[in-house]
């Protein structure tokens, strides 16, 4: 028996929507997928006409689909945005060097300016060198902190107003659960914030990071890329994530298998939460005395980590913190 799309009732269904379990045809899926991202952008007043936007592009599925969809919506709905591609080269042989080729391909396809910044240039350390120094245990901490800072520097160089990243609904749910398990109550309510970094307390504003895929399932991103025949780079980072995060990822996949709405439901849960009471001290924001970028301490995390690397004593520092 032929099964028809439950949205248009005309075309043959070609997939089940992971979010609802409804049968849907290719066209209705593309339409709904793009409409939902447009809705996310509009309902959150993410952009103003004429703004310069850097798309954080890694060459992976999320950022490849992000480049495609944002370019498309920008034309279709006249957002009036000037788009740039911004890539970070962490210096991981056999992983990032290959994925950057994909980004270069995107640059040609969508005719966008591309800026690539490398850890080696910025910090004089590539991730390969970092791992050689500190081992495989905490490397993700370094990489994460360095990437934040690298993106900020790249965005400043490009002179953009905002950075958009490809974080999807699954990533949001994962961050939420990670922060809860870590007991990080300051970050917890902001785990799923769609725009971060523009709070501007103490008169310091940093570049806003926006996440247009907040309500977009990872599964649907993969499907969209597949059926649109977008070329992306799909290899896991050679330095795999720590055991803790691995457990949480597996949990989210299992949850989704049992109750597909669970990913969005976790986001909905997080939206109900607020920052802790006034009497619990929030870390104060200030400018790092070394690099002059935003920090919650006198010296920012990136500079602290960098200094410890340079003194060859990174291992000890991490052990003391634990």
């Amino acid at each position, binding site marked *: 028996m032929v099964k028809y799309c439950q949205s248009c009732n005309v075309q043959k269904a070609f997939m089940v929507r992971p979010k609802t379990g409804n049968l849907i045809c290719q066209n209705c899926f593309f339409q709904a997928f793009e409409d939902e991202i447009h809705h996310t952008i509009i309902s959150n007043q993410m952009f103003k006409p004429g703004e310069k936007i850097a798309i954080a592009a890694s060459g992976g599925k999320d950022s490849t689909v992000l480049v495609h969809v944002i370019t498309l919506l920008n034309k279709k709905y006249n957002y009036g945005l000037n788009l740039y591609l911004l890539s970070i080269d962490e210096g991981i042989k056999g992983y990032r060097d290959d994925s950057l080729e994909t980004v270069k391909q995107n640059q040609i396809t969508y005719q966008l300016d591309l800026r690539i910044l490398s850890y080696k240039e910025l910090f004089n350390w590539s991730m390969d060198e970092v791992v050689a120094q500190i081992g495989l245990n905490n490397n993700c901490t370094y990489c994460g902190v360095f990437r934040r800072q690298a993106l900020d520097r790249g965005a400043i160089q490009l002179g953009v107003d905002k950075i958009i990243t490809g974080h999807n609904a699954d990533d949001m749910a994962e961050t939420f*659960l990670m922060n809860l398990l870590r007991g990080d109550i300051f970050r917890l309510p902001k785990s799923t914030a769609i725009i971060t970094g523009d709070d501007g307390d103490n008169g310091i504003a940093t570049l806003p990071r926006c996440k247009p895929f907040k309500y977009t399932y990872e599964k649907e991103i993969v499907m969209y890329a597949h059926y649109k025949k977008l070329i992306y780079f799909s290899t896991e980072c050679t330095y795999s994530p720590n055991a803790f995060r691995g457990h949480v990822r597996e949990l989210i996949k299992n*949850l989704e298998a049992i*109750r597909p709405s669970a990913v969005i439901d976790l986001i909905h849960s997080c939206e109900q939460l607020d920052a802790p009471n006034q009497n619990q001290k929030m870390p104060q924001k200030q400018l790092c005395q070394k690099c002059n970028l935003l920090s919650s301490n006198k010296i920012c995390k990136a500079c602290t980590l960098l200094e410890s690397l340079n003194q060859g004593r990174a291992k000890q520092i991490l052990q003391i913190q634990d």
Partner: protein
Amino acid sequence: MQQKEPKLCKKCKTNNPNIIIQKDPVCKECFIGYVEHMFKMSLRLKCNITQKNEKLLVCFSGGQNSTALVKMASDVVHSTCAYNKSKMFIEVHVLYINESFIMKQFIQEYQPQDYTNFVTNECKLPFKNIDIQSIYPDPYILLKQLHNLSESGSSREDFVRLIKNHIIYDYAIKNGYQNVCFGQNGQRLAADLFSQLSKGRGLSLQSATKYNFSFIYPLNQQKLQILHPLKELLNKDILYYLRLKSNMNFPQFILGQHLSNNVKNKPAHGNIDHLLEQFIDKLQEGFPSTTFTVLSSAEKITIKPLQQQNHCPLCLEIRDQVYNRLEVETLDNSNQQLINYLRANTKYYNKICFTCNRMLQSAQELEKFYNLDGFPPLIIQLADLIQ
């Protein structure tokens, strides 16, 4: 073979240790002393049970946690604690909700259990047994509703839980109990919390995990206090306590497992609660601070102020705010049509909270659920009362 230095109990420093509590090896006697002390302190200091002759309704399911709870309560009331025998002058009443009616339908080889001997004779506490189907005018509607709910995703188990809660609250109110005691230990509370969050119940971050949480029962505006006095203990503590204190046989049939009997090839038999229990148990073994980190953050977090405090007639929790329509719906036509239809054609769609909505979403005969067709009069009464 390498000769190990003989370890001694960290507390009494005389006996050989049998179990580890919070990294310290202790002996059997000191362990029991610790659990009993912890229970009394939780009741007095954390649950605020300080008045003389205060009445406590203890919910008992026949499972391990609530068995331990009943046993501890009995020792406290009858001053039969092994060590600190000081008596607490409280009245404890045990309530058991008998699920046999559902069990028999889902489990062929089911044999009903009678807990009267354990509660009345062994623990010497007054015991009340209520059949779960008794609040339905037509009990078979309950079975039909369960069959109509999706088998995967814990919807059926959630439904049974909310019917049980209605019975408990109703019984407590009608019989003058302000304090309702549940037996979940800390590890179970942490797992429950994760499970609730995965179902969208962010508002319950505090209420689900507090030692004591009070709310106003909508029907007659009376205050009810939900207590979790075993919050400081872990699964392991409960198991070892029972090992030393009771000869109870635990039921072989766990309703949740059987409600989703035909779900194959899904993690944890398609049951979210069990999946999260497994998740927390696994982390707890690798990272022993897991449970208490989660519970202490849950206590510190606040929730966003709500414009209105309306309750959901099904779960009686506060109806949560939706900040973006994509949390609730998708923008493809089929989903839009369904939601518009339910909004326009059912009586209670807008009163039901986000999470209960998710529970019903995949049901057969959706309109019946959203019209509360055949539901217990108690629930319909609440729904009509709630704005």
